[in-house]
Structures are given as structure tokens and as C-alpha cells.
């Protein structure tokens, strides 16, 4: 193989790719935040004793978990506007799809976490006169976060990678820019390798930090 690797092209493409990275991060971080918040709410609904609350949340979770993310993103861009009568920008459609998908998965992580906490923790807190919301906030959820940190990290990594699907809606994120550049210059090896490397550099620090944090928390208990 006597392929001439064009490093200059990489340097030249870097500003465009970094602009793409910025959009990727703008998709990634908010959809994790929104997904976690909504996921917690869904998990509490899912654990409710009232069927009116429990069943819809269960349906929602299953709907998002059992259909491909790609169809969800495309659906929010092309189909959802027909229902609501407002055209969403590709970015908003992608953000909505990713957030709702993340919420369904994190709901299941939260539910598993909440159910894994021994009943004695609820009792110990209730016996002090704490209200259920205070028990959840002060006693149960901190332990759930700790116990579920590996699962949440996995989810966050998944979402980072899933965000590349937004390229099919022409959101100008990292993947989109990479594909555009590689077809413009006919240099997929340089461009796509760089894209993959940027994804790795974006995701790895979070994964490393979470591992560190997990270890530190484990040594505290």
C-alpha cells in the first residue's frame, strides 16, 4: 500500500470538524440532562401504584426502547410537524428525539436503581418523620446515582454516539461535517479517521472520570 496520507488536509479541515463537534456537544449534553430529568419522572410514574400513572409511562418507555433511534429522529423531523402543524428545525427535531429516547432508557436505570435499594432505607428514613419526597431526595436517590453510575455512563456514551444519526437530518454536527468533507476531498481515510478520533477524545474523558468517581465512592462505603 503506497497511500500518501495527507496530514495537511486534516489540519485544514479541523476548524470545520471542530464546529461540528460543538454542535454534537450541543446535542449531547442537553439531551442527557433532559433525558435524565424526564427519566427520573418517568421512573417514579412507572413505580406508582396508580395504574393511570403507571401504564402510560410503561407504554412510553417501551415505545422508545423498542423502536430504532433513527426512525425516532426522522419521525420527529418529518411526521411530528404534521401532527402539531409546526415545522421543527433539524437540530430541534434531533434534540427532541435524542432526549426522549434517553429519558426512556434512563427511566429504566432509575427504576432498577430505586428498586435495588433495600426497603430498610425507606423505613429508616420514614421512622425519623421524613416525608416520602425527602426520603427520595436525601436517602434513596443519592444511593441510586452511586449504584447506577456505570449504567448512566454507558447511556451517556451511547447518546454521544447516537447523536451522529442527526446527520441524516442534515444537522451540521461532527458526523455530517465529516461526511461532507470526505466526499468533497475524496479523502475518507484522513477525514473519517479524524472524525472517529475526535469522537473518542470527546467521550473518553467522561468515561475515565466516571471510573475514577466510582472508585472514590466505593472507597467511602
Amino acid at each position, binding site marked *: 500500500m503506497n497511500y500518501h496520507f495527507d496530514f495537511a488536509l486534516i489540519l485544514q479541515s479541523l476548524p470545520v470538524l471542530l464546529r461540528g463537534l460543538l454542535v454534537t456537544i450541543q446535542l449531547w449534553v442537553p439531551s442527557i440532562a433532559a433525558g435524565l430529568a424526564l427519566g427520573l419522572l418517568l421512573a417514579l410514574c412507572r413505580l406508582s401504584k396508580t395504574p393511570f400513572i403507571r401504564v402510560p409511562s410503561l407504554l412510553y418507555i417501551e415505545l422508545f426502547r423498542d423502536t430504532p433511534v433513527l426512525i425516532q429522529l426522522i419521525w420527529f423531523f418529518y411526521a411530528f410537524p404534521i401532527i402539531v402543524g409546526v415545522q421543527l428545525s433539524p437540530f430541534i427535531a434531533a434534540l427532541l428525539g435524542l432526549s426522549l429516547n434517553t429519558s426512556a432508557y434512563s427511566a429504566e436505570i432509575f427504576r432498577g436503581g430505586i428498586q435495588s435499594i433495600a426497603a*430498610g*432505607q425507606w*423505613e*429508616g*428514613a*420514614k*421512622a*425519623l*418523620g*421524613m*416525608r*416520602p419526597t*425527602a426520603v427520595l431526595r*436525601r*436517602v434513596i436517590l*443519592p*444511593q441510586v446515582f*452511586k449504584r447506577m453510575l456505570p449504567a448512566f455512563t454507558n447511556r451517556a456514551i451511547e447518546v454521544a454516539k447516537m447523536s451522529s444519526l442527526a446527520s441524516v437530518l442534515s444537522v451540521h454536527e461532527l458526523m455530517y461535517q465529516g461526511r461532507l468533507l470526505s466526499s468533497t476531498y475524496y479523502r475518507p481515510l484522513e477525514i473519517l479517521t479524524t472524525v472517529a478520533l475526535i469522537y473518542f477524545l470527546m467521550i473518553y474523558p467522561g468515561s475515565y472520570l466516571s471510573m475514577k468517581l466510582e472508585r472514590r465512592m466505593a472507597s*467511602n*462505603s
Partner: protein
Amino acid sequence: MSETILRVTNLQKRFGDLHVLRGIDFAVEPGERIAIIGGSGSGKSTLLRCLNFMESPTSGTIELDGKTLGRPVRGNPDDRLYPEGELCAVRERVGMVFQQFNLFPHMTVLENVMEGLVTVKKMKKQEARECALKELQKVGLADKVDAYPGRLSGGQQQRVAIARALAMMPEILLFDEPTSSLDPELVGEVLRVIRALADEGRTMLLVTHELGFAYHYATKVIFLADGVFHEVGTPDEVLKHPKQERTRAFLSRFTEFSF
């Protein structure tokens, strides 16, 4: 004349088909120390847990300071509804120590004891800290305040749990087999703490298998069997001179291997 703090009338508890408590009536006077004994499955823990509503009674009433708790359900006078707010207020006044300690593993010893003071009693952090330190000193754990529960022995954990309950200044303390999950050599340190509370004249109910402790420190002993009070009396009456055959049979199992 002493006033009744807690009065239980015809308390019943069912778990599905299982009729655990079959009509319990009794009253607790200030300063009383009531030991509840009985075989496993006799309903003694369930009884205790109904008193601070860890379990909701199926029927019957519980009065605290003359006030009947909960309100009757319309159309079904036997059934009562217990609003969460009322139960929280009751639990503040009726503290509980569990067999499994139930400490919060993500908080230090000090934070465990401060938790109720800050979130329930709305104390300032500094004030709660002083209060918690005082209670921890009382149970002999002032040197462990920054440790996490996972690093403590069972006996130490149970003493933290007692300090946590005490910090809330409850009027009544419920002990649900506080030494049953401890190694034998750790039982003494916990019983000594409970004895010190008895010496302070605190009102307490204790579900226990430590009959010697019950004999020396209880003011009243209740033998529970099949969900009813089988025999009630002074420690001497129930433990030394039981009138009922069933009580004698129960007690004889404890002395079988003594020497």
C-alpha cells in the same frame, strides 16, 4: 397520676389471608418499659411496626396523647385513613430502632444522626451538629463521627441508630429486636446503651429475645402468641411465675441449654 401516652384498641393486622394481629388492646404510661416477647411469627414485630405506622393497621385505633390517629373511611367505620403528614408527625414522636439498623450508607455517622434534625426538625446545620454530637457521645461513639457506617461493627452501627432516634427527642422509643442481628459479643454494648435510657426514665417498647434484660429492666412484660396477648404482667410474674402453659413452654425453650 400518670397520663396514658399511647392507647391501642382492638388492633388487627392482616397480610392477605394471614391474620397476624387479632385484636390487641393496651396502653402505655409515661416511663413504662414494656418488653414484648414471643415466638417467631407471633406478631410482635408487626405490633411494634403498627405503632409508628411502618405497617398500616387493618382495623382498630391508636391514640397518641388522647387523640385518635387517622380518620374513619366513610361507609366503612372499621377502616381508617392515615394522611402522610399526620404519620410523619407521629413518627417524629415515636422513634424506632430496627433490627438491621437501617443507617444511611452514603452518610457519615454524624450526618446520619443530623439528617432528621435538618430535614424534619428544620434545625440549622450547626445546631444539628451539636445536638448529634451530644447523642453520639452518649452512646460512646464520639470518636467515630466521620466514619461511614460500613466501617463500623454491628454493635457500633446499632448505637449510631439509637443516637439517630434519640436526637429526634421522641416521647416513645420502639426497639425492634435491636440485638438480634448482632454477634453475641456485641450484644452487651447495645444493651448497656438501652439500659442507660431506661435509667433516664424513658418510655420504651422493646421486642426482644434477651429475656434476662427484659427481666431486669422492663416494667411490664407481654407474651404475644398467635396475634393476641397471651400473658401480661410484671417481669417476675411473666418470666418467673408464668400462669399460662404456653408461656411456660416458650420460656422453657430458652432455658433448655442454660447451665
